[in-house]
């Protein structure tokens, strides 16, 4: 859990400050150009690319905590 938190903190800190132009099947290139993306490590070993725009840090954290990669 400690490693997971450290990874998440690092990922959020870096992801929120650097925009990525990587595109994924679920996000069009046009959308991705305006979105900031980062890798989110869930609590059951999964890693997901999450992109966001115009979302507060609190709303993003509340979303990721609830979703948690769909882990039980």
């Amino acid at each position, binding site marked *: *859990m400690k490693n*997971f*938190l450290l990874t*998440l*903190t690092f990922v*959020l800190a870096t992801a929120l400050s650097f925009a990525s132009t990587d595109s*994924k*099947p*679920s*996000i069009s290139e046009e*959308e991705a150009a305006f*979105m900031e993306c980062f890798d*989110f490590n869930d*609590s059951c070993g999964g890693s*997901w*690319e*999450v*992109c*966001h*725009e*115009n*979302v507060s*840090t*609190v*709303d*993003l*954290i*509340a*979303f*990721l*905590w*609830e*979703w*948690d*990669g*769909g*882990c*039980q």
Partner: protein
Amino acid sequence: MKNYKLLFLILVIFSAQSIFSQNNYRIKYELTYQIDSTDANNIQYDIMYLDISQKNESFFRPESVFLKDSILQSNNPNALFSITKPKFRYSIVKNSDGEKINSFYDYTAYKFKLSEDVNLNWKLDNKEKKKILGYNARKATVSYGGRNYIAWYTNEISIQDGPYKFKGLPGLILEIHDDQNHYSFKAFSIQKLADYNSYLITSDFKTISKEKFADFKKKIKQKPSLILYNPGIRIPKEGMDKYDRNHRERNKYKNNPIELN
């Protein structure tokens, strides 16, 4: 002499009420419940807080909901990842001045406030008594939400409140359970709080009727990921599908809500 005794008794009661009404209190309850009505072995536990503020308001919610609300308003919202998700999403707010009870439900993307009049027709049983946490407790019974409850309250603590939507007894409810023992709340700690912040931003919650709320719950049972709706966040579709699959599977066994009607 008889008058002096009566005066003394009134003074004792009054001073006890003053002491309890001048402070903030947190009563912690252990909730034990049977999530699946057909499986008596599937018992779950949760810690619940009943916080009573000096402003004659009380807040009843799972410990994890209180922690979530307080962490998200702190300087370190990342700490949210260190707590487990709550099994119940409600915060129940009671005001000692009226019978109206407000329940605040936080479904991430949707926040609803449900107001209702809860009339509890308590029957006091002055014969049966027992000690709970060192207090003399008396028995009372009531029917609510399709269940018959047995409560134990103490008039040595003049807080007329209790867990969940239960209130209105001449003292604090220390234990309450339904006659099938599917839901049981037991107080295990009473703390005085120096100051109190509920961390509940009630203005974020939209008022909803009981009927519309029931419709909403049906919808999220079919598609749990609806509560994650946020047009500003994109995740791979498989991530949402996995959330739906796992929550639908878990919901199969959730057939025993505290309120049956």
